[in-house]
C-alpha cells in the first residue's frame, strides 16, 4: 500500500485570495498622493517647509512608538499611518511654525487623535485635525499665518477677506492661486499638487469620490448662494474652492477612514455638511480658514449619517 507522505498543510479560512490592498499599501498611496504638493511646498517656501514636514513626520512616528511601548502592544508603525498623520498636520501648518509647535501638534495628533482610541480605526476624529485644533486654540499667534509670514511676499487671501473685506481680494488671480501663490498651510495651499494627488486617489479608488464631491459641492453651493444674496460682501465660489485648505480637506482629511461614513448616501451627506460648514465658518466665524473645524464638526455627525442604511438582503 502506498503511504501518503506526512505533510503539514496550512489550514486557513476563505477567501484564499486577497485583493492585495492592505492598510500599509493604502497609506503608501496616500503619501504618494501628497508628494506633488510637498514638492511644490519646498519650491515655494524653501527649506522651512521641508523642516516642518520632516519634523512633524518624525515626531508622529516616535510618538506612536512610545505610545505602543507604554500601552504594551505590538507596534503597527509599519502600516505607515503615522507618516500620513504627520505629513497631513505639516500640510496645515505655516512654513514658519516654530519647532515646538510642530512637535506638540504632531504628538497631540497621535496621542489624542489616534492612540487614545486604541489601534488605528478607533478614533472618531481625523487625527491630524485634533493636533491642529489644539495648537490653533492654544497658540493662535503662532498659527496665525499672516503675522508669521511677514518676511514673505505672498498674501493670505482668506485672512484678507476676513479682515479687509471682499474688495481687498477682488483682483486675486485664480490661476496664481492654483499654483500655490498664496499663504496658508504650507502643503494645503499647493492647490495644483493637492488636486493632482486627490484625483489620483479617486481614480485609483483609494478614497471614495463621493466625499470630496460632497465637500466641493457643499462649498460651491453655499458660497454661490451667499454670493447671490449679497455679491458685494461675499467672495465667489471659485475663490473659496481654491484658497486655504478646502481641496486638501476634501480629498485628504474628510476622507479619513474611521471618521467618515461608509455607505454612499451617508458619505455624500457628510461631504455636503463639511462643505457647508466650511463656508459658514469662513463667512460668519472668527477663523479665516474654516476647513479643519468644519471637518471635525462633520466627524461628530458620522455615527448619525451611518444610521441611514438599506434593508439587508431578503428582509421582509
Amino acid at each position, binding site marked *: 500500500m502506498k503511504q501518503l507522505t506526512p505533510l503539514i498543510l496550512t489550514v486557513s479560512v476563505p477567501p484564499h485570495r486577497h485583493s492585495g490592498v492592505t492598510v500599509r499599501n493604502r497609506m503608501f498611496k496616500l503619501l504618494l498622493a501628497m508628494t506633488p504638493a510637498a514638492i511644490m511646498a519646498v519650491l515655494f517656501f524653501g527649506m522651512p517647509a521641508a523642516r516642518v514636514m520632516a519634523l512633524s513626520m518624525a515626531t508622529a512616528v516616535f510618538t506612536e512608538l512610545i505610545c505602543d511601548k507604554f500601552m504594551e502592544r505590538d507596534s503597527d508603525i509599519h502600516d505607515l499611518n503615522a507618516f500620513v498623520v504627520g505629513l497631513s498636520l505639516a500640510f496645515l501648518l505655516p512654513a514658519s511654525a516654530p519647532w515646538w509647535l510642530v512637535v506638540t501638534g504632531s504628538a497631540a495628533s497621535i496621542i489624542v487623535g489616534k492612540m487614545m482610541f486604541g489601534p488605528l*480605526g478607533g478614533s472618531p476624529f481625523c487625527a491630524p485635525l485634533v493636533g491642529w485644533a489644539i495648537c490653533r486654540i492654544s497658540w493662535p499667534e503662532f498659527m496665525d499665518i499672516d503675522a508669521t509670514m511677514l518676511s514673505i511676499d505672498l498674501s493670505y487671501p482668506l485672512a484678507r477677506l476676513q479682515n479687509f473685506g471682499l474688495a481687498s481680494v477682488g483682483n486675486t488671480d485664480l490661476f496664481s492661486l492654483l499654483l500655490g501663490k498664496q499663504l496658508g498651510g504650507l502643503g494645503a495651499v499647493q492647490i495644483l499638487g493637492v488636486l493632482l494627488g486627490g484625483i489620483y486617489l479617486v481614480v485609483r479608488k483609494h478614497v471614495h469620490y463621493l466625499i470630496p464631491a460632497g465637500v466641493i459641492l457643499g462649498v460651491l453651493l453655499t458660497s454661490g448662494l451667499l454670493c447671490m444674496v449679497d455679491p458685494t460682501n461675499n467672495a465667489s465660489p471659485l475663490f473659496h474652492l481654491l484658497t486655504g485648505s478646502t481641496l486638501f480637506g476634501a480629498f485628504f482629511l474628510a476622507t479619513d*477612514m474611521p471618521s467618515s461614513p461608509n455607505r454612499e448616501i451617508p458619505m455624500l451627506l457628510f461631504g455636503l455638511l463639511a462643505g457647508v460648514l466650511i463656508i459658514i465658518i469662513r463667512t460668519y466665524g472668527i477663523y479665516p480658514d474654516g476647513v479643519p473645524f468644519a471637518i471635525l464638526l462633520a466627524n461628530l455627525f458620522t455615527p448619525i449619517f451611518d444610521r441611514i442604511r438599506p434593508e439587508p*438582503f431578503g428582509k421582509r
Partner: protein
Amino acid sequence: MNSYKHTDIQQTDLFLQHQCSLVACGQGVKRGERVAISLLPGKGDIHSPVGGKVSYVDAYRITIVAENNDVVAPVNLDGLPGDDLKRKLLELGGDIPDADSVSTVIINGVDADTDVLTRQHMLTSSSGTLERGLAAITVLYTPRETVLATLPGIQLSLPEVLRSIISDQYPAGLDPMVVKAVTGKESPEDTVIIGLETVYHLGRIMETGLPVLDTILTVNGRGKTVPIGMPVGELLRLEGDHVLDQDRIVLGGVMRGTAAVMVSQGVDRTVSAVSIVRNPTPVAMDAACVGCGECVRRCPARLDPAMLTNYAEFGMYDKAAKEHVNACFECGLCGYFCIARRPMLQYIRLAKNELAVAQRQIEEVVTS
C-alpha cells in the same frame, strides 16, 4: 484521465460535521454501506466509498482501509411516491432541501467562483444523468415550473426546463443572487434552489440504485469524475501535482472553499474543486478593523460586515443577530477586500454557529 475509479482509493478519511457515525473500529464495511447518518434535515447520509475495514472512528472522522470489492445491493426506486422516495434518497446520500408547497424550483447551474467549472462540465457531459435527477426532483417537489440557471453560451439539451442566463461576475452565481435574478424577488417563499451537483447525485442514485459514490469536480482547470472519498493528496498526486509542506489544499473555489486539514481527507459530495494555493503568508491576520468601509460597500447582502465581525470578535452574538448576521450568504467578498485583512468570514460563521447552537439548546429546553 477524465475519471478516476474507487480502486484508486487505498485508504480514506471521511470527515463528519453534522453527522453521527454508525460504525465501530475494526468493523468490515461494503462499498456503498451507510457509515454515518446526517443530523441536519434535508441532508443525505454518508457511505463507505470502498469495501474494507474501519480502522479509526471519532466524532469528526472515520478512516476506512480498502480491502475488497464487496458492494451493497442496488435498491429499486422506480415508481415510489414522493415521500417514500425522499426518505430513500436521503438514506442513499442525496441532498433534498426541506420545503413545502414549492411553485418554482431553480436549478443553479452556474459556477459562481471563476476558477471552478464543475457545473458547466456536468451540463455538457452528463445530460442523461441530469435528466434522471430532474425527473426525481419533479416527483419530490411537484413544482409549477423548473428553471435552470446557467452562464451565457452553454449549449445543452435538457427538455422541459426554462433557461435563465446569469452573469459570470462574482457573486452573481451564488444561490440567493440567482434566486433574485430568476424571480426578481429576494428570498421568495415558494421557491427552492438546488445546486446542479445535487441534481447530478440524485440522477446517479436513480440510475444505479446505489448510494452516491462519485461526483464531478474541477481539478487542474478541467472537470473530472472522481469517486467520493478519494483522498485529496492522492487525487493531486495522480494529477501530477506535488503537495509541499505548508501548502493549502482548497476544497471548492478560492472565495468560499474550505482548506483540507490533511492530505488523506476524502472529497465529499459538496466539494466542487480541488486546488493547491501557495500564498507566502496566510491571507488573514488577527487585526482590528480600521474603518475603511470597503466591506460595507462591497457586501452584496447590504450588511455591515465590519460591525458584524466586531460583535463576533467580542462574543456579542445577540447584537450580531440584530444586525442580521443570518442574512449573510458567505460570499467572502468582505474578507477579500478587507484592507486590515481580518478573517471576516470566520467571524461571521462563528457568530452564526454560536447563534444556531443557542437556538438548538433553547428548543431542547422548550420541548423537554
